[in-house]
């Protein structure tokens, strides 16, 4: 695909675990274990999953903020994952990140303007006067007043701080912006302000977003394509339309049916509890994951085959890929719960 800005190919991030004793077998956390996808220029790609699914590690590995164990990351045709030293440093301006927590991700001792200016200084972009001018225009673009650049982070509300974080991410004119749960720490009423801002900035500057979230409502609102991750693997990878109209993987069903929705009154008693697909227990640990399908331990429909043979991500129809033995090649799935 020629218009792919970002291509991720068989990305793996493994962390060795400290041995508990001299004679213990070495253990590895397979945080990301063979993830491939590509993101079209100007689009928004969502990664969803529970905590521990590897979605944030995937983003950090793409940005080269954690070491890649195996695999390749291409940015606009260039092998970003192979860059080293000065080349990597120069290329970093093309990828920026917006963090989840606007309270801990801004230095409390720097003025807001200096925070936004810093990436340009680090990457030696423009003259000092040009940088100041850009800070002023960025402040206006994210909905702050230019004179607020003189203030310190504690003088802003949570939503305003996230605007500063967005301005900082845009300072180096990146092509790819990674948004790591950018609204989950904000008050409900403020979330809409930030989501709308992200949308209009994308239109204005042709930005490409990699959007990490556990909130499926937000993902549906913002993303064009979505990958659902479970224990370091992509289990379903679809366009937005396909994923929300016709989800295929039992884990996706479980995620979707867990979201509280308006207009769906929860029925009391046994009947109400059975109307959704419930997952028992917590996600298992990504340390030495089980053989076969990683979801098989929690999947209510798992068969013998699921526990021995790992399903591969395969295309069911254009724009819809799933890794599940139960999904037939014609795209029909048994057991699909009625609530979806």
């Amino acid at each position, binding site marked *: 695909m020629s218009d792919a800005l970002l291509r991720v190919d068989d990305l793996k991030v493994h962390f060795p675990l400290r041995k508990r004793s001299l004679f213990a077998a070495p253990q590895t956390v397979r945080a990301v274990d063979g993830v491939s996808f590509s993101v079209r220029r100007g689009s928004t790609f969502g990664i969803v999953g529970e905590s521990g699914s590897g979605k944030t590690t995937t983003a950090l590995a793409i940005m080269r903020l954690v070491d890649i164990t195996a695999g390749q990351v291409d940015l606009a045709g260039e092998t970003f994952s192979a860059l080293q030293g000065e080349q990597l440093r120069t290329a970093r301006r093309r990828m920026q990140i917006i963090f989840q927590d606007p309270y801990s991700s801004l230095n409390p001792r720097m003025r807001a303007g200096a925070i936004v200016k810093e990436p340009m200084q680090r990457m030696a972009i423009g003259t000092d006067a040009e940088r100041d001018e850009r800070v002023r225009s960025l402040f206006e673009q994210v909905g702050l007043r230019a004179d607020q650049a003189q203030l310190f982070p504690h003088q802003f509300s949570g939503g305003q701080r996230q605007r500063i974080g967005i301005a900082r991410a845009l300072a180096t004119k990146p092509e790819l912006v990674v948004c790591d749960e950018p609204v989950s720490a904000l008050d409900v009423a403020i979330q*809409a302000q930030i989501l709308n801002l992200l949308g209009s900035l994308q239109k204005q500057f042709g930005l490409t977003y990699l959007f990490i979230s556990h909130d499926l409502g937000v993902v549906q609102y913002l993303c064009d394509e979505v990958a659902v991750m479970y224990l370091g693997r992509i289990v379903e990878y679809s366009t937005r339309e396909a994923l*929300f109209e016709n989800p295929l993987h039992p884990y996706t069903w479980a995620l979707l049916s867990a979201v509280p929705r308006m207009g769906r009154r929860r029925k009391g008693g046994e009947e109400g509890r059975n109307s959704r697909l419930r997952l028992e227990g917590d996600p298992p640990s990504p340390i030495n994951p089980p053989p076969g399908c990683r979801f098989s331990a929690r999947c209510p429909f798992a068969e013998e085959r699921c526990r021995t043979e790992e399903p591969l991500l395969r295309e069911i129809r254009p724009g819809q890929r799933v890794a599940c033995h139960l999904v037939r090649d014609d795209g029909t799935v048994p057991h699909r719960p009625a609530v979806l």
Partner: protein
Amino acid sequence: MGALLEIENLQVEFDTWEGRVRVLDGVSLSVNAGETLGIVGESGCGKSMTALAIMGLVPRPAGHVTGGSVRFDGEDLLKANEARLREVRGHRIAMIFQEPMTSLNPVFTVGDQVAEAARLHLGLTAAQARRRTIEMLKAVHIPEAERRIDEYPHQFSGGMRQRVMIAMALVCEPQVLIADEPTTALDVTVQAQIFDLLQELRDTRGTAIVLITHDMGAIAEMADRVVVMYAGRKVEEGAVERILGEPAHPYTRGLLACRPQLKLGPGAVRTALQEIPGVVPPLHLLGRGCAFAERCGEAMPRCREQFPGESEVGPGHRASCWLLEAPEGRRAA
């Protein structure tokens, strides 16, 4: 039928550097047995303070309850002494907090912490309390309860810790359970499990639940009645179907429209996301008028001058907004 818990005209003030600030202003609400009341609003609206006031836990010396009453089973808890409050707290009215990570004591086993309330309030012996604790841990679906009772909080995941908190709150079979954002720190799948559990308790034991949340989706699934709060005041109250279907207050409408709602099935389309501009005003800067006027798209001069009284907009459905009294009548949602 009298309500199990009835708050009337509750007023709480705090001493701050800016002077005395009223954080709760004339809040009235009630909960019946076996009912779930949802309290919804942004941070700083007084939701949690209402819960603390019910429990007699308004932080001192800065906080003062300056008026109103909290009647539980006919008794005014605001007039009760500390000894009596201690009998009620954790026994008849229990609370689960937002942060299961910080609300458990890391140096005691999970079993000790659950058993404490049972020994204190029910006068059980250590052995009886242990049996009761295992029973409770099983009731909140903690696997291998007999073994895990002797583990420490750090050995539990976030969802499991929240279950322990619920077990602690329920060990004395309280009549009222106050849940202050019980699932905010948890994954959606775990949130669904906790909601199932709360509902099961309400259905099987008739526990009244006060669910404090900012998520209208949670309200839609869990609550029977809803109270919407803004800047220390109740702005709307009604049955959940009315609040979701025919919200009367602009703030309630804003809360409903500002969150992306998940839509499933064929033809699912994205709905436009409406924002509520601005933020909740600092409480010391509140004027005489409606606190929401600054963020309200429909505000009139009158809104900034005087706080509107409650208007009845339907059976059991009341809201405080001048628009409801405007000559052209109520505007369509």
